[in-house]
């Protein structure tokens, strides 16, 4: 035990003092903050865009007043041949030209949009939607449905979701928040396992190619050396994770205090300013949409708070350790068996496969957190850490988590045993090209 600790300590200190560790640890929260900043800036900035003018040639005459101008776009109905309008378009770059043919009712695919440059998919979608909506309205009213009914039928559905907790009380559940949290946790875990697993392999290869291994191995049992290294790197991972948490929180808080504003109020201010500038006619419309935006934000915040954060945190640490131990011991075995990076490649691929598959399963499971794919892949130890982390924010029955954890522990005990058998032979083997047959023989070698 003393030796495991000594190896762990060395491994930890050497890695934590590395420049790359310090740079990565400090830079990542800054990058996250910057990423946030860009999103906010983009969100706020989009309101300040120049107004766009979209010209509409409506040969059918059905769309008068149907294209409503708003803060960013002005629709302008013009007449005259398309060709001349197209020529004008060339001069004023921002503008779009929409051409609605007279037979649009019978041939809806005849809608044409021209632009000097490219047409953004958002713009295209918006125009198509307006036309589609109008055509439908016309068809419906032709079928004898009154305008009033049509308007009433345009209901805005925005579901609030609830999940029943153990006491049978309903709790505002948080699909979006759970989605974000699940995906983030799964992805973080995936990255951590990959990076730190490969780190263990590098470390083992370094010791072998340095030839220090023979000196060390005459003082420390190979298993102790391997475990010390694996646990040392795990400690580095946890340190980085905690530092990221603290720094991200720190940077975010600092930014908010420094600029004296909260991003939601900022958004609101911009919206208000926008509303003042707009026509009184639009004002009402905008306030409505604005309140619904704020509503969504508030509900997201509220639901984020309803997430089982402590549980997510504890499970994250557990699944990180479990998944990492499972994979890193295999990585250690590979590092011990090969002599250079190229040779390592053929063996790392089959190990990376289930890790990569697990992030794929996690994406599928997020959409169906209680499906059978989600269930089974969160039980199999090779995929369970990543998949389970994706599911947990949605709420997973306690017995499933417990079972998955037990299986994971059994899984890493198994892989660690297997890896140790290969490791102890591999580290002293030089000048021999290994293959799977050779490796499987090593497992059964006596001490």
């Amino acid at each position, binding site marked *: 035990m003393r030796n495991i600790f*000594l190896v762990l300590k060395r491994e930890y200190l*050497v890695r934590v003092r590395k420049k790359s560790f310090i740079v990565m640890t400090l830079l990542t929260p800054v990058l996250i903050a910057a990423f946030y900043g860009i999103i906010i800036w983009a969100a706020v900035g989009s309101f300040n865009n120049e107004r766009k003018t979209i010209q509409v040639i409506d040969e059918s005459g059905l769309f008068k007043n149907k294209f409503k101008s708003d803060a960013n776009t002005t629709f302008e109905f013009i007449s005259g041949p398309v060709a001349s309008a197209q020529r004008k378009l060339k001069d004023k770059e921002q503008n779009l030209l929409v051409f609605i043919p007279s037979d649009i009712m019978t041939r809806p695919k005849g809608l044409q949009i021209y632009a000097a440059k490219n047409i953004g998919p958002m713009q295209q979608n918006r125009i198509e939607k307006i036309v589609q909506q109008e055509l439908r309205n016309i068809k419906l009213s032709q079928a004898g449905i009154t305008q009033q009914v049509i308007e009433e039928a345009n209901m805005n559905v925005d579901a609030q979701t609830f999940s029943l907790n153990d006491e049978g009380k309903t709790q505002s559940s948080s699909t979006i928040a759970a989605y974000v949290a699940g995906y983030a946790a799964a992805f973080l875990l995936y990255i951590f396992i990959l990076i730190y697993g490969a780190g263990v392999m590098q470390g083992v290869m370094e*010791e072998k190619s340095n*030839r*220090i*291994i*023979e*000196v060390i191995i*005459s003082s420390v*049992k190979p298993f102790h050396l391997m475990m010390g290294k694996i646990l040392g790197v795990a400690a580095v991972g946890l340190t980085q994770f905690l530092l990221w948490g603290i720094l991200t929180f720190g940077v975010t808080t600092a930014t908010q205090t420094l600029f004296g504003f909260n991003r939601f109020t900022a958004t609101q201010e911009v919206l208000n300013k926008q509303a003042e500038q707009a026509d009184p006619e639009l004002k009402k419309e905008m306030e409505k949409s604005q309140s619904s935006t704020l509503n969504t934000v508030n509900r997201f915040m509220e639901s984020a708070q309803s997430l089982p954060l402590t549980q997510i945190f504890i499970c994250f640490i557990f699944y990180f350790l479990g998944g990492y131990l499972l994979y890193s011991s295999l990585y250690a075995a590979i590092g011990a068996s090969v002599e250079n990076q190229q040779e390592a490649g053929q063996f790392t691929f089959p190990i990376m496969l289930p890790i990569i598959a697990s992030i794929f399963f996690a994406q599928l499971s997020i959409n169906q957190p209680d499906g059978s794919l989600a269930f089974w892949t969160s039980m199999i130890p090779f995929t369970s850490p990543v998949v389970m982390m994706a599911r947990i924010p949605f709420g997973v029955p306690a017995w499933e988590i417990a079972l998955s954890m037990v299986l994971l522990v059994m899984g890493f005990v198994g892989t660690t045993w297997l890896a140790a058998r290969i490791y102890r032979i591999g580290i002293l083997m030089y000048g021999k090209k290994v293959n799977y047959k050779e490796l499987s023989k090593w497992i059964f070698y006596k001490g």
Partner: protein
Amino acid sequence: MPNILEVHDVVKQYASHRALDGVSLNVPKGSIFGLLGPNGAGKTSLIRIITQITAPDEGYVLLDGERLRPEHIQHIGYLPEERGLYKKMKVGEQLLYLAQLKGLSEREAMEKLKIWFKKFDIKTWWTKSIEDLSKGMQQKIQFVATVMHEPKLIILDEPFSGFDPINANLIKDEILELRDKGTTIIFSTHRMESVEELCDHIALIHKSQVILKGSKKEVKDQFKEHSYSVRYHGTLESLPADFDIISHKIDDEQLNKANIRLIGDASVNALVGNLISQVELVSFHENIPSFNDIFIKAVGGEIPEEMTSLQ
């Protein structure tokens, strides 16, 4: 002299070949013991068993009369032939780490290291990275790492490879000093001149078996051919049938030089008597085989005539 290490009938089988086949040998306490043998003979396999890196399939090893146990690791210092250190680590930290792995506390390790750093006059290296040291300097550090925990038994595998003559001498003196303090040193090498110089006992391993062992004198006696090298003025007409003139030539100083072997129970005095009655003797000494000759003879069959005659 009691034995610090006894190897009894050790067998080590790897998948397709038997690395050690019933190896037995005794290493007397306080000796410098030469473990000799051609490449691939099984020396490293035996060392790995003594250092408990691997375990024997059959047989056993006694250290100071006890079966090998994990605690014995701290009584053994091992300098492998293929050696290395953590390149990016500082010299001081690295040695402290290695000393602690050998069971020393950090403070003990610090005290011992101070003595060695003073002795080798390398105090300024403490904070240097290994990669900033020359190869010879690294070897010194490696030697310190091997001996700093004051083991009873030190195993050195080709310790002089990579050393310049000055440093090789420094290490040689250290080895002798350690021996004088009562440490036993096992010295694995195929450089016979250092065996000649340092070892008082040897074992020769060939094809997984010990083919020769004993003290320096015992081994040499075993390979002695009872031949004598004689230099003289004058002409040697003939010798009785008990004496066989193996070779004769005239050397650079225009002296006759002959190698004469005693056959059967013929006495040295009789030879000398015969010689002085015929020629004027300049020098007379017994041909004692070098370890080089012994090695080649034992491993590769007969020693070419030329080699013995050069003695």
